[in-house]
């Protein structure tokens, strides 16, 4: 080893120089390098450890959640009976207008094994992969709303790109008015989700619900995304600056559902 490495008094400086050089090169070129294989290996190695660590958290939360879920189930049963009537009426009206039928979502339950990214998690590892039928592009939701979409699929695991990933974008609409916009993560002036591209002429209000748009190529229509938390004016003065509070608790995910995405048109990935 002594022949390869420099003398002890200069070894630290030399190693630091090498590491700093590699890091800078990676910073400049890393996004163009294929990293999926390495991440797959990492996910495979860490998955059993993640499961072991999460057992404690899952057990402590299970009792509390069970109690809350019983209450919620009762509430939802009452609501479902009311919605069933409304649904039948809606179907009759859609039939009379010649509109297409709604497509029911096919939910595949998965466990969230690990989260990554800071200051807010931007990706998560799911306990299902290609063998369970998960595909790149599938939407991931919780009972509260949209979480993101599957970005990488490994044999038994997959990686979901959360709404808080800087490169994620979702076509959305304001539920009550149909105003269209693109949901993106913004780091300025602090990390937040914004609905961009909404002209100032469109009327939007705080607390209105935002759902996935029918114009989205990747997500089924009507999945809750969040609510409008704050309204402002974009620096250009042409569009609203709309801050969205996500419906799903993106930093505290335990379980989620994979929803097969709509079939992509040719050439779209």
């Amino acid at each position, binding site marked *: 080893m002594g022949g390869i490495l420099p003398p002890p008094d200069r070894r630290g400086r030399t190693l630091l120089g090498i*590491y700093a050089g590699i890091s800078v090169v990676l*910073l400049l070129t*890393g996004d163009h390098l294929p*990293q999926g294989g390495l991440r797959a290996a990492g996910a495979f190695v860490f998955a059993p450890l993640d499961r072991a660590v999460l057992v404690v958290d899952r057990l402590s939360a299970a009792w509390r959640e069970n109690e809350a879920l019983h209450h919620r189930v009762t509430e939802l049963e009452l609501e479902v009976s009311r919605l069933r009537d409304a649904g039948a009426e809606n179907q009759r009206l859609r039939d009379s207008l010649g509109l297409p039928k709604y497509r029911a979502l096919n939910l595949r339950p998965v466990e969230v094994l690990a*989260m990554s990214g800071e200051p807010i998690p*931007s990706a998560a590892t799911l306990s299902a992969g290609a063998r369970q039928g998960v595909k790149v592009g599938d939407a991931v939701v919780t009972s509260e709303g949209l979480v993101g979409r599957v970005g990488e699929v490994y044999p038994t695991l997959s990686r979901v790109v959360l709404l808080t990933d*800087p490169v994620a974008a979702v076509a959305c609409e304001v539920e009550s008015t149909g105003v269209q916009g693109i949901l993106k993560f913004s780091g300025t002036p*602090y990390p937040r989700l914004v609905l961009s591209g909404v002209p100032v002429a469109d009327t939007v209000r705080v607390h209105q619900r935002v759902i996935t748009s029918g114009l989205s190529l990747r997500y089924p229509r009507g999945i809750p995304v969040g609510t409008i938390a704050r309204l402002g004016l974009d620096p250009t003065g042409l569009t609203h600056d709309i801050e969205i509070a996500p419906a799903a608790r993106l930093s505290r995910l335990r379980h989620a559902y994979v929803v097969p995405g709509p079939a992509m048109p040719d050439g779209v990935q």
Partner: protein
Amino acid sequence: MRALGGLILLAVTALLMRSTALTVLAARGIVLDALAFATVVWALRTGESGGATFGFVLGLAADLDAAHWLGRHALVLALIGYTIGRLSRTLVRDSARTQLVLVFLATLVHEAWAVAFELGGLVGWRYLAVRVLVAGLWTAPAGVLLLTLVRQGSGQPLFADAALGSRQAA
């Protein structure tokens, strides 16, 4: 061989905690920087070469996990590992006060550098400052407490071997 085993164990533990338990705590406002803490511990124990190597390896693993800006954590953690390792020659490493200051400073530097990538320029400086300070204020006392517990559990100074090693090297 024993050092390599310790390096891998500490790195895996830090990465594992970061992607599981610490994420849950961070959602409640308790930001603990496991990467900076682990790098400081390893640098105090092994000196600048070991500190820089550990920081680089740990950072690279964290970068791969984050999917964006490969090299971001590796660069700053290698620098932190080298600096702490270098400083450790002249410090009383088993002093809780020394550990508190070093972990606090390392957390500030690491968080400021890593989080700055997520923010679009200086507009987000206020969020960055709060986040960095909160991380430092949580990580430093928690880290020192953990080191104290480990020291008391093992019944011997954690950094005695390193102190001897660096004297021999000098």
